[in-house]
């Protein structure tokens, strides 16, 4: 990917930029647990460097790009249609680079590795999985006693995370220590694939949002935009907290990968949002009461542009928007999500059409904001 220039799609005047699926694939296959986002960031830098006006890494490791300030610089007052003094809002778009994973916390004398979680991982998905450890991508397997040696009834007991271990094939602590160090991160060993319209891969929460954001900055936006690819969302929304303070935007849109609810026997309510049902809007979650004007605008733009939108189940989960909205004197914020099945698991699904629709929705919303957003 390094240094590859992506031609601007100037022919599609007024149309939203093309979704960068090549980047989603690269980002999904890359490893970057919270606190270890360096390689993911490097790939995004390669993808956006030629398109943005400035590009910085802040003190926490967030990647911050500015674009579109030249004609409609934030703070520059313009006359609105009604003759009322108005300025183009400075919009922060944010997607987090980190994924859930584990850290090696000890190397046992038999050569096995003990693990600690970074982010929300259900211990029930771990036994029998294959992980990639460290920057060299060494493979290991999460061992479990075979059924033949499992005491009667024990297969009905969840193995606590602290009892799990990773077997890299080493026969001793000495052998393991030649390849692995305490503090190394490990991720699921999952390969991105295209199955019909479905895309399978790991870390779609939130590499999906990262790729949507990188797609958006391929074209010059109608309002000044600061794009933030944030760190450490999965361990407490930390990167965006610091970034929002420094960026000090007028408003923010957070781009996320969110859990869709389809399952056998699930009711219509439980199944929402659905993969393939379009970009997903948040009313509120555990961290945020979404700004109603932004949500109304997103919905209206969707209707006008015939982009299907749907609602995330209210009250569930939390995103960087929760912290951004609290930043400084407050930032009106909303969340636009890609509905994904099986996030925080070894492999997730998303629908490629939803990815392009999310780019479309945000792009046209930026245009609408440029025309009609005003401070209260």
């Amino acid at each position, binding site marked *: 990917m390094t240094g590859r220039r992506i031609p601007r799609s100037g022919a599609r005047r007024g149309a939203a930029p093309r979704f960068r699926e090549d980047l989603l694939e690269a980002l999904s296959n890359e490893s970057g647990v919270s606190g270890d986002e360096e390689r993911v960031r490097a790939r995004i830098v390669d993808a956006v460097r030629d398109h943005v006006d400035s590009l910085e890494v802040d003190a926490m490791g967030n990647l911050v790009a500015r674009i579109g300030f030249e004609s409609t610089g934030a703070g520059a007052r313009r006359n609105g249609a009604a003759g009322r003094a108005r300025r183009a809002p400075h919009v922060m778009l944010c997607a987090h680079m980190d994924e859930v994973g584990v850290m090696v916390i000890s190397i046992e004398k038999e050569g*096995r590795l003990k693990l600690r979680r970074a982010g*929300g*991982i*259900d*211990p*029930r*998905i771990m*036994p*029998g*999985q*294959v992980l990639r450890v460290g920057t060299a991508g*060494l*493979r*290991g*397997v*999460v*061992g*479990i*006693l*075979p*059924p*033949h*040696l*499992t005491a009667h009834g024990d*297969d*009905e*007991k*969840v*193995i606590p995370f602290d009892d799990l*271990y990773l*077997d*890299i*094939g*080493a*026969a001793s602590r000495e*052998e393991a220590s030649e*390849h692995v160090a305490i503090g190394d991160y490990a991720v699921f060993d999952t390969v991105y*694939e295209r*199955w*019909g319209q*479905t895309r*399978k891969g790991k870390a779609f929460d939130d590499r999906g949002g990262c790729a949507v954001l990188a797609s958006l900055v391929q074209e010059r936006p109608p309002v000044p935009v600061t794009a933030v690819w944030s760190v450490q969302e999965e361990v407490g929304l930390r990167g965006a907290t610091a970034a929002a303070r420094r960026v000090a935007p007028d408003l923010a849109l957070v781009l996320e990968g969110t*859990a869709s*609810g*389809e*399952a*056998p*026997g699930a009711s219509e309510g439980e199944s929402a949002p659905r*993969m393939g049902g379009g970009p997903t809007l948040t009313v509120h979650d555990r961290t945020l009461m979404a700004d109603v004007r932004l949500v109304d605008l997103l919905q209206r733009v969707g209707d006008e542009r015939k982009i299907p939108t749907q609602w995330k*189940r209210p009250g*569930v*989960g939390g995103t960087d928007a929760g912290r951004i909205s609290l930043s400084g004197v407050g930032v009106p914020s909303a969340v636009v999500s890609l509905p994904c*099945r*099986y*996030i*925080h*698991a*070894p*492999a997730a*699904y998303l629908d490629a059409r939803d990815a392009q629709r999310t780019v479309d929705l945000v792009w046209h919303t930026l245009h609408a904001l440029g025309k009609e957003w005003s401070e209260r």
Partner: protein
Amino acid sequence: MRDASTADWLRHVTSLPGVPGHEHAAAPEIARAFGLFADRVTRDPIGNVYGWIDGTGEAPRPRALLAAHMDRIGFLVKRIESGGFIRLTTVGGFDPRTLPGREVLIHSKPPMAALFGTKPPHLQARGESDKVVPLHELYLDAGRPEAEVRRRVPIGTMVTLRQPPVDLLGGRIAAPGMDDRAGVVTVIRTLDLLRADRPAWDVVGVGTIEEEFGTVFLGARTASERVDPRLGIAIDVSHGDMAGARDGDTIPLGGGPGLTVGSNIHPRIFEGLRSTARSLGLPYRIEGYPMSSGTDAMDIQIAREGIPTAVVGIPCRYMHTGIETVEPRDIDRCARLLAGYLAGLPVEWSVTEVLK
């Protein structure tokens, strides 16, 4: 492939599907592998595959049967539900805790990948992650429209875990299907050794069917009837050393063959294997199973008029998961042990005695 390493053979042979009753998905490749080294390859109507090495003794020669089962545990499609979700029946003993989030291959034409669905933590009720999802509640999601799933996936379609072989440190390899494709590879390696160093006996390596299913080791029993061997040896995986396992239940990976003792094993074959291991300088471990060895040897033993049997075990961690782990060196040692033992058998060897 004649010069392929044991590790290459393991990667290749474990990649073949073939759950019980569907061994035809693996049998042609296994027959081809046998054919690289055996004098003749045959297949019987029930599905067993035979690779024959002709001995140097005067005909009619006694025959030794080496059995490794070709089937591997897996699933069959049971039902397709609203939304295109797929329910399965298991063929072989899975621990349900090893399945959530795993990828599988549905052997439709063409095959379709899918995964076991899981509920993300965000949508779980409090305490939900403390409960194991039982087998009957697990489901597959192929990420495709219901109509396409219904059109492409007939009931009864075979499903196997989708996990490419994983190369670990020390040359160890993790993959689904080591049970008992590692045994099949051991037979391939043994045939190769015997081709060069011919025994007096005829040796018949058999890839058997349906070891993992049912109340009878069907392939082993029928192959014994057909071959009429003077002795039979089952080659199967043994539990390798693992965290949480009791001493005596496992043998170390890299520690060489496991030699079973117990009622299923004829002491003279056991002693012969042990003395061969000693004279070849091969490490080995002894495993005590007084009741059942849980292998094809159970049905070889009681076929025809009774056949003396033994079991050679390949140390394998995490049996019946998608990450069954072996060390290729152990498989080479098993093959050398078997070839050495068989090459040393005189044609008059027999366990039956006429006392008066």
